[in-house]
């Protein structure tokens, strides 16, 4: 396991070179989104009454938090993974030292998780500042967002390692990440989706994360529900990690 931490250290050191830009966006993004959706769109949705039971900003905030976790994880685990295999060949450098394929893969995933953790941590503070947290359990929405991040970064790293061309990266955003962002209960309840699409939404890790985070911020969470959501996300992440190790090995050791 030490090897994974040494690989992780590489990404942290590299990050120091570009942290400024990412800190600005991780503070600005939640403020912009919550302002636009809560104060702007919320005015129209709430329309005097609260059709969702709570104000729209309160409804949408945990969805935004978890979706941010997915987005950061997806950006970090696609192009950068492909680059580390094909262009910068950072993984190859690690493997010419005593690190193993598993160390290389896990080390990068640890870095994705830390990027998600810091950004969603800031997001959660913004949520609090906008008055959208209605329960002390809300603090657990943070690890949920990180878990969602891993549930995406693990299979996406496998995909990026396997992908034959970099246009595959744009494709996974267009046909995967963006539709999930819009239709996984982030902005409106999935019960509004037509039959079929609704079941599809239930199968996505984002919906599980959003639903759990929402019950946590509203204080309506139950043990059984939490267990199901967490188990689903853990299983998704575990399969992703297994796939990632296999595709990494296929590309790097041959």
């Amino acid at each position: 396991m030490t090897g994974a931490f040494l690989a992780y250290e590489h990404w942290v050191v590299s990050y120091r070179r570009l942290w400024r830009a990412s800190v600005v966006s991780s503070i600005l993004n939640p403020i912009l989104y919550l302002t636009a959706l809560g104060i702007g769109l919320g005015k129209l949705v709430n329309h005097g009454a609260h059709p969702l039971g709570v104000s729209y900003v309160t409804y949408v905030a945990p969805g935004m938090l978890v979706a941010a976790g997915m987005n950061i994880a997806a950006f970090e685990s696609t192009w950068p993974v492909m680059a580390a295999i094909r262009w910068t060949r950072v993984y190859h450098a690690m493997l010419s030292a005593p690190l193993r394929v598993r160390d290389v893969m896990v080390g990068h995933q640890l870095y994705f998780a830390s990027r998600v953790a810091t950004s969603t941590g800031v997001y959660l503070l913004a949520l609090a500042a906008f008055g959208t947290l209605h329960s002390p359990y809300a603090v657990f929405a943070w690890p949920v967002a990180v878990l969602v991040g891993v549930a995406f970064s693990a299979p996406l790293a496998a995909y990026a390692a396997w992908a034959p061309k970099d246009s595959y990266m744009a494709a996974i955003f267009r046909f995967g990440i963006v539709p999930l962002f819009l239709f996984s209960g982030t902005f409106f309840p999935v019960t509004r989706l037509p039959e079929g699409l609704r079941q599809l939404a239930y199968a996505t890790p984002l919906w599980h994360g959003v639903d759990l985070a929402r019950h946590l911020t509203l204080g309506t969470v139950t043990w059984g529900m939490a267990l199901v959501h967490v188990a689903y996300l853990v299983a998704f992440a575990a399969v992703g990690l297994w796939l990632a190790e296999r595709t990494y090995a296929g590309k790097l050791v041959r």
Partner: protein
Amino acid sequence: MSEHGALIHARGLTKRFGGLTAVDEIDFDVQPGEAFGFLGPNGAGKSSTMRMIGCVSPISGGTLRVLDMDPAVEGARIRARLGVVPQLDNLDNELTVRENIIIYGRYFGLSRRELRVRAEELLDFVQLSERANDPVEPLSGGMKRRLTIARSLVNNPELLLLDEPTTGLDPQARHVVWDRLFRLKQQGVTLVLTTHYMDEAEQLCDRLVIMDQGKIAEEGSPLELIRRLSTREVVELRFVGDAPEIGPEVFDGKVARVEVLPDRILLYTDDGDALVPVAHERLQPQSVLVRRSTLEDVFLRLTGRTLVD
């Protein structure tokens, strides 16, 4: 050490990619302290062999022992004692020159404190001290190569693997790299390198194998190979159009062998100067050059092809 005392011991070593056999049952041993070369054209199987030695490519057949360990079982332990200079640079472009050495040294579990000292020594060795705080990206190709070499030495390796160490460098940069590698050799570091430059092989290698199409065609020291497989001198005749098709008989037995290439004719002989007037008289070439035999001539003799197309 193994019973042979060799740092690398290969018998019947084979690498297949699907239906393609990249390395075809080769045998070789690399002894401590020597500079050992794989000379051959692109696609001869040199890099595949290096990757197997570097424990990042499983062998398809035969046996391979590196530092008396099995790469399939103890790859990480072997790599801890190797230095690797890959064919394609994999430096961290966004980090500084010094940071590149330190972060690479961390992969070996060395402490930051010892790495800071080590980085200064290594940068001094490859003459990059004054660039220590610069980012890597604007460095010249030769400087990047020297940095890659410095980085590969961070763990004090017993065995240094260099895959085409000077490919793509200009002549001056190549000489600086050779000079550093020669110094390492003098310090007792075992060098294993691949190259398709005969001058590089002659400069650096105590012993080499000539590879072609996955097989080892010959083995020996550069001088020994030239003595055994070529003549002392070569007369190169260049022509304006196509070179005429001739055989050794044109020169009344004074020529051991003739190679007719598209643009020139090579006459293999022990006394080149004696041939020059005869060649002028009988073939009317555009130019005549007498030179000593090189590994290029050995390769041509063995394979019927030139090394660098």
